[in-house]
């Protein structure tokens, strides 16, 4: 069998939800708000029964060969991916916000879902995406004086060449 890519078939006419372009992913609806639509969309979703932001992470598409996005969504280097969950009639939704490299700024969701505090700090730490009005915009995983954002594709893995030490070598 040859696996069929799910996201390959984009709908001819972009469907919308909460006024936002959507696409489909296995079992989940994917919303593609712009940075301006981001906060209002989440607000609308919160009112619609999405109780929690389960996950928020960043993706750096610098070296990606080309991703499939619905029409009307311009790809940018960074994406902030927000996973939300609704408990009544259990369902999930995912938001993919395109964030430009030139202005990596996104409003914080802290006032709607305070649980994103740590996740946004992680996204900042790892990708350098700034969350406006975040209560504690500091690094979370790396030491405070660390340079660079490790999960960016242009940040080296930092691997040290493996060297085999001689067994009898004096120390």
């Amino acid at each position, binding site marked *: 069998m040859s696996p069929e890519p799910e996201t390959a078939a984009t709908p001819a006419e972009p469907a919308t939800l909460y006024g936002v372009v959507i696409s489909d992913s296995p079992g989940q609806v994917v919303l593609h708000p712009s940075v301006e639509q981001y906060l209002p969309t989440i607000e609308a979703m919160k009112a619609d029964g999405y109780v929690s932001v389960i996950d928020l992470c960043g993706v750096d598409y610098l070296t990606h060969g080309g991703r499939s996005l619905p029409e009307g969504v311009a790809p940018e280097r960074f994406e902030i991916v927000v996973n939300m969950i609704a408990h009544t009639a259990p369902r999930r939704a995912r938001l993919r916000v395109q964030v430009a490299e030139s202005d990596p700024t996104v409003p914080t969701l802290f006032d709607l879902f305070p649980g994103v505090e740590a996740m946004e700090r992680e996204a900042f730490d790892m990708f350098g995406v700034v969350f406006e009005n975040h209560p504690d915009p500091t690094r979370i*995983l*790396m*030491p405070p*004086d*660390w*340079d*660079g954002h*490790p999960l960016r594709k242009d*940040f*080296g*893995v*930092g*691997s*040290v060449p*493996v060297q085999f030490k001689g067994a009898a070598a*004096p*120390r």
Partner: protein
Amino acid sequence: MGIIKDVKDNGMGGLEYNFLTAKIEDLVSWSRARSLWPATFGLACCAIEMMATGGSHYDLARFGMETFRASPRQADVMIVAGRVSQKMAPALRQIYDQMMEPKWVISMGVCASSGGMFNNYALVQGVDQIVPVDVYAPGCPPGPETLLHAIVTLHKQIETGELVKRREATGAGAGIVVEQRDGQSDTQIVLSR
């Protein structure tokens, strides 16, 4: 006669093989080997196995080692159990410095010994860049049996006095300096003495 001649020839060094001091030395190494209190330095997966080693099936207490000391001042051996991140490294060195001589280090697991499978920006590639390691326990994570073997090896080395002699000769620290790698800032050069 012999002693006097030794002292005449070698100064105080001639007392090295004196009967009395030799016996006290034996007694001290015996007690150090028999009462090796570990500092709690659990980091990652290995810490769980370290706990298991203290548990009922493997029982570190047989060696008088169930007294995990929370305070580094009272501990004799630091079992570095798990991966050491760049952020943790200064804290680890600090704990090591807080320990009182004589002190030993067991590097438990491949992450502590060499960085293991995580050859990347975040981890110190081998804890021997920060503190002098006496025994390496291989495995990911080493099973309790492996850790016990490492501990018994350390006991033997302490009892024969090999370690003490080597430490005096070379001083503390493995003497390895890590160069700056791509993606790391200058501040991340690992401590070394």
